[in-house]
């Protein structure tokens, strides 16, 4: 942690900070994202709302350090992505970030438990944190799956056999294992029907609270706003998007 450097706007409580970020896939002129400032405090629940195609996925890839901004800074837990090597970014991501996709979250050929344990396999920090609470990491995975109300009988099943709702809960368990500092969820409820959506939100938020993880939740569904302390309209912060739509 010798390279930890805090910018003036960063406090030790900041989980994610994006400032003056500009990103385009095909060159500087066709910017997809142009963002002044977005921050997420530790333990905070932030909902980022916007219609599809407004740069949400790009923003999340930047936040998770998969893409690097062409301009501006993106810091995760006080470390700037741009200052790290590719391997360091991969390590920092799995150490601190749990990620939930819209759908197809699981590796179909692994069992449910093995899917949940993936971050522990690739990160010592996640493995140790999972073990510190539950002993063996398999116990931690099982406890999370129980908390997310996935029947024990399914734990050893291949992931491909699960329903969509069950798969999303397994994905949530994988994002939460080893208490990452920040959970990023990219429309995780869009494939779920109304009842399952409410159930999933309740379980996800419970677990984030228990693990004291910050939650960056992206959705186009305004009805979910009541679950969050803070809601940001992406169109309000992304200046590129304002001009287009």
């Amino acid at each position, binding site marked *: 942690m010798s390279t930890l450097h805090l910018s003036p706007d960063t406090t030790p409580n900041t989980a994610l900070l994006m400032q003056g970020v500009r990103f385009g896939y095909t060159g500087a002129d066709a910017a997809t994202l142009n963002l002044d400032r977005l921050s997420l405090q530790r333990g905070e629940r932030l909902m980022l709302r916007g219609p599809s195609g407004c740069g949400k*996925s*790009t923003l*999340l*890839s930047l936040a*998770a350090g*998969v*893409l690097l901004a062409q301009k501006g800074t993106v810091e995760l837990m006080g470390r700037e992505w741009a200052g790290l090597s*590719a*391997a360091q970014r*991969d*390590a920092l*991501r*799995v*150490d601190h970030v749990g*990620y939930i*996709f819209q759908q*197809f*979250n*699981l*590796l*179909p*050929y*692994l069992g449910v438990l*093995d899917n949940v344990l*993936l*971050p522990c*396999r*690739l*990160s010592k920090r996640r493995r140790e944190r999972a073990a510190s609470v539950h002993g063996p990491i398999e116990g931690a995975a099982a406890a999370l799956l129980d908390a997310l109300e996935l029947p024990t009988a399914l734990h050893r099943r291949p992931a491909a056999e699960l329903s969509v709702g069950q798969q999303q809960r397994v994905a949530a368990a*994988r994002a939460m294992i080893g208490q990452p500092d920040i959970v990023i969820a*990219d429309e995780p409820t869009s494939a779920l029907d109304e009842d399952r959506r409410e159930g999933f939100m309740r379980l996800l938020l419970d677990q984030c609270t228990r693990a004291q993880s910050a939650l960056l939740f992206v959705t186009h569904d305004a009805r979910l706003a009541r679950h969050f302390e803070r809601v940001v309209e992406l169109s309000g912060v992304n200046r590129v998007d304002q001009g287009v739509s």
Partner: protein
Amino acid sequence: MNSLLRIAFSSAWHRRLALSLVVLSLALSTFLLLTVERVRHDVRDNFSNAVSGTDLIVGARSGAVQLLLYTVFRVGQPTQTIEYKAVQALQKDPAVKWVLPISLGDTHRGFSVVATTPDYFEHFRYGPRLPLALSEGRPFEDVFDAVLGADVAQQLGYALGQRIVLRHGSGALDTADHDDMPFTAVGVLARTGTPVDRSVHIRLEGMQALHVDWVAGMPIPGAKRTSAQEAKAMDLAPRNVTAVLVGLKTRGAVFAVQRRVQAYEGEPLMAVLPGVTLDELWGTIAQAEQALALMSILVGIVSLAGLMAVVMTALEQRRRELAVLRSVGAGPRWVLMLLLTEGLLVSLSGAALGATAWALVLWAGGPWVQAEYGILLRFGLPTAREATLCLSVVMAGIAASLWPGWRAYRLSLADGLAPRGA
């Protein structure tokens, strides 16, 4: 590393149907490579083993390879005979230590009959210069004694005292049976792994007795058949032999003796050096061997192309999988390693399967090859060269995975957590 292997295995197992076809074709090419190599190697071994103590083979003038093949390995066309006087002349040569005249042409139930002198058991050498040994019985003494090769006794279930009817020629016509003069098995030779095992050995006098009534390969029509007892009373000194195996006092004299044989005035003779002639033989079949080896390599290349195609095609459908792996901290290099590991697993399975099939075929088919062609294929651990062949299949499999691996690397870099087109 452990998790990489585990994930690679699970992922490959998930696509086992397509990959198993690749494994099969890799197994086939491994099998071909190993088989060509083993046959090539063992055929050479067999041939060199069969003539290890003989310095020169003397026969009627024809092709050197033909003479060697017929007299030592009993394959190919019979050569003309030479007069026994030539044998006696050879024996008087000061550089010659021993001569083994042999007369071929008769068979017993598909096995060759070798008529020779009792010296055969003393001077003939095979393999690493080993002398012949009897596993039971004694060498031939009487005109109608026969000593059996190990395979003859075993395959025909013969014991000492067995009466044997020889047949003139290669055995197609039963009218050519020498049934009026049966032989008796008096000895069985220990196994040598050479054509000796597949031969019935008799005295030259026995061969002479068989043919007293014969002219030009046929019994004289209408003539009274001579009985065995009558034949024994006749002069059975051999008049012709097929060839003479010659041992010298010093190997250094080999070319001088060869020249003297070529210059023999009684009839046109030739003397061939078995080693040199074998090299000549390998030279002529090297092209066929190379063609076989090339074919195996081509099958290998096609298999590798198949591996590449199957992995490459699947990659498009695996972009989602790569994104998930990226989200849990797998870097592009990890993804590359995943693909290479998959290539390793597939080619390792292919090589292992091919080698197993090869070992099974050697084990099950070896006896048949020996019975049919007289060539002993070793069944045992792979040689260093064969192990290298297996290893190169595996290495080639990994190399063939480099391209899909590189593509996966690029895809996972470009897609990040948002796979497009998946």
